[in-house]
């Protein structure tokens, strides 16, 4: 970083260079920028912009299309990342590639390509930004820092071991001088972790492991040291953060071996947990586990959204998650205590909810050699596509699926490893759920015609909700009622979380579908 941009970051308020992120933007609702994965640290994905509204959304028009395949030659690069928009430039990614395009016109400014040594090229969730530096993860386990001006590489650091079948896909989140990075992979049995890296050097600041060491809190939930050390808990969806409490909120992934639980009896902390970590040290402040001892691949990684609300007449600092296992949780984010637990789709795997608000797994619904009929299926009632919370309606919105499948154990040997089983099935139904956080009840539900929805949600102060359906439609609905107001067929299903920003007095809505990013605008 040069002296001037350093001074600008230290002495907030001075005139910043072009293509540089003013850190103050990260602490405000996104208006003329979208500076971090969720727009701001809360994870709400709520835009305070209202130039596009339920009254005029019919006048929303296509401004531009950018096709990643034009730059990469690969039609398979699905845009799952949420773009950042800073100073008129959009930054987004697909595995091994980062793009900078003009937020007004969609014209490419630069494109960076990483030469891969392997890893799972399933998706990349985006980039993080600090000053004029960008950060992204590669499937072959590297954290790469680029110069936002021209996409030139500044440095790269290895953050995981490809030989253990780790891979990396999450969008780094920059908080103060911490670059928060996570890891993916559950083919062999490996522990998940979250790390904080120095934005200047990429060096490690702290490392938090999803599984405890012998004697540490949580170790009592594992049968032995080996099972614990290989217990999983990947960190593949970006965290949220409360600047006042200085706590970072993370959802962790499935325990491993994935479907065979017999070698890891116990609750398997801190897999499939919502954890609060102190941002400066990475130390655990509290945890809440949505799926104790899971055997269905129901990562509890879905965005833990932060908002302040009122419950039983009291103002509360809250956190809510619509979890892959079908349950909606509201917690007090100061201490992790459960406020609400409810089903946002009907499930069949739990015997009830315990006094702490956790579902109690029914052992009969663990995978069996002859099969167990379970809902949700492995795809989950929800998955990584980002949900949204609108303070204007007080509703939590999530694209949900209710599907059954038969869960089998394929490896009934003495010591199953890896997956050891899987589910088989199909069909089901998908719907957009609007959940009242005060009661956990569904306020309205908009059923899609097909199944398997995988689109993120954006809400706005214009009473709008933007998302995708199970076909290829990008749709604006009335956030209060769920009525569709506008749509366009993008030729591929909406594959990321939409964003919105204002430039030159015009409000834009940006969305990814297939290999392309689409810019829609309502011009003044």
């Amino acid at each position: 970083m040069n002296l001037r941009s350093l001074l600008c970051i230290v002495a907030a308020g001075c005139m910043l260079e072009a293509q540089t992120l003013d850190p103050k933007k990260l602490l405000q609702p996104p208006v003329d920028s979208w500076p971090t994965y969720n727009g701001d640290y809360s994870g709400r994905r709520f835009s305070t912009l209202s130039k596009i509204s339920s009254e005029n959304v019919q006048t929303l028009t296509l401004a531009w299309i950018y096709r990643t395949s034009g730059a990469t030659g690969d039609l398979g690069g699905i845009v799952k990342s949420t773009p950042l928009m800073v100073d008129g430039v959009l930054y987004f990614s697909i595995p091994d590639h980062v793009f900078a395009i003009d937020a007004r016109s969609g014209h490419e400014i630069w494109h960076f390509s990483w030469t891969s040594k392997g890893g799972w090229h399933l998706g990349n969730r985006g980039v993080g930004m600090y000053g004029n530096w960008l950060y992204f993860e590669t499937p072959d386990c590297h954290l790469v820092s680029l110069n936002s001006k021209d996409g030139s590489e500044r440095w790269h650091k290895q953050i995981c071991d490809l030989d253990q079948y780790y891979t990396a896909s999450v969008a780094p989140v920059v908080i103060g001088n911490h670059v928060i990075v996570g890891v993916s992979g559950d083919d062999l049995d490996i522990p998940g972790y979250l790390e904080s890296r120095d934005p200047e050097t990429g060096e490690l600041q702290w490392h938090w492991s999803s599984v405890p060491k012998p004697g540490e809190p949580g170790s009592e939930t594992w049968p032995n040291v080996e099972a614990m050390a290989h217990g999983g808990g990947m960190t593949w969806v970006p965290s949220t953060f409360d600047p006042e409490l200085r706590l970072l909120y993370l959802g962790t992934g499935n325990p491993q071996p994935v479907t065979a639980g017999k070698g890891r009896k116990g609750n398997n902390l801190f897999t499939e947990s919502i954890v609060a970590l102190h941002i400066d040290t990475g130390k655990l402040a509290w945890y809440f586990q949505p799926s104790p001892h899971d055997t269905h691949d129901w990562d509890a990684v879905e965005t833990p959204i932060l908002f302040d609300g009122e419950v039983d007449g009291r103002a509360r600092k809250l956190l809510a998650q619509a979890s892959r296992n079908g349950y909606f949780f509201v917690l007090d984010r100061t201490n992790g205590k459960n406020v609400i637990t409810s089903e946002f789709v009907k499930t069949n795997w739990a015997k009830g909810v315990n006094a702490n608000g956790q579902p109690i797994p029914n052992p009969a619904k663990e995978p069996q050699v002859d099969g167990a009929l379970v809902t949700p299926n492995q795809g989950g009632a929800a998955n990584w596509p980002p949900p949204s919370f609108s303070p204007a309606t007080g509703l939590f919105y999530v694209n949900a699926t209710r599907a059954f499948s038969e869960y089998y154990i394929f490896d009934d040997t003495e010591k199953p490893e890896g997956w050891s089983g899987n589910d088989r099935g199909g069909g089901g139904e998908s719907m957009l759920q609007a959940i009242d956080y005060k009661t956990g009840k569904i306020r309205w539900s908009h059923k899609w015609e097909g199944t398997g929805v995988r689109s993120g949600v954006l809400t706005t102060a214009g009473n709008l909700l933007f998302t995708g359906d199970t076909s290829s439609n990008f749709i604006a609905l009335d956030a209060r009622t769920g009525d569709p107001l506008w749509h366009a067929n993008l030729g591929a299903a909406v594959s990321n979380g939409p964003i919105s920003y204002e430039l030159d007095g015009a409000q834009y809505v940006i969305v990814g579908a297939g290999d392309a990013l689409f810019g829609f605008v309502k011009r003044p």
Partner: protein
Amino acid sequence: MNKPHWSKLIRTAALVLPAAAVFAQSPVLPDAPGRDTVQRVCGACHPATVVLGRGRTREEWGQVVANMISRGAKGTPADFASVTDYLAKNITTGQSNGKTTSPRRVRRGFSMGPDDKQIVDTEAAERGRAVYMSDCGSCHGPLARGAKNGPDLVRSLVVLHDRYGSTLQPYLQGQHPSVEGKPIAKLTGDQIKDISHFLHQQVDNTLRSGPYTKVLNVMTGDAAAGAAYFSGAGGCGACHSATGDLAGIASRYDPPTLQQRLLFPRTAAPGSGGAVAAEKPVTVKVTPENGESLSGTLVHIDDFTIALRDAAGTYYSWNRTPGLKIERNDPYAAHDELLDKLTDKDVHDLVAYLETLK
């Protein structure tokens, strides 16, 4: 880390040969019938090229396609049949042993580790198995997953970082602790390389692409109870008959396939080689506000449009306006309703009963 020589050579060759370099950068699906369907159906969620280098049998590809449908893959029954057929014919088992694949083709399978992962030579692995069983198995277990006296080698970093003996050889020839006070057996470099192939084979077997992807046994139910459920609480007799449409069904499908078909009749079923089960399409009758009704097979429906193909093969579509009346007949609706009623015992009993219909 000492990497395999042949892999380096091929990489170097790729750098100096322009044609090879182009291929190495852009893996492409083999040009054959069905490729466009694979690109469209599979590519909607992930790069379709992930299939490259992960050859499977037709039955295994059927299982993969069934699994993808359960995860929300979109397509018509004909699309899924075409995808399975393409994969079974073009991404065959011969490609996964390394002898017919380039390093780049090995790259993007379902369990995606390093590009330079060791390609197991099955003959060497068999030789290695013999040495392993005689000198290592008693402590590390027959599947190398550890036993009382020796750690799990599938999870061992020495093994996972090894390529063709690169880390295993120095370890076994110097660092391995003594066993009961005696040094371990002296192994030659060739023997260690063979053991390396055996151990990497055990790692591969643990990956999702390994052999543990088969349903083992679903015949645990009570056929008499299944028959009672069939004609009683299940209400199956409303559409089916043991002497009619279901006569001989046990000869047509293996038990895991029967189980999937009764639960999820729309989707491709494991064991049937991906043959698509949904012979009966959803039909619709569409009546415009001031027009005549048209009936046919449902082609597409979303919140905004509906399309059908009539008996003559003609395609029609409409915008879904408030006055447009749609009547839908889903032949599998009763199966959907069963999902919320069936207990696991019912499922196993029904399969046992259907298996008696030889």
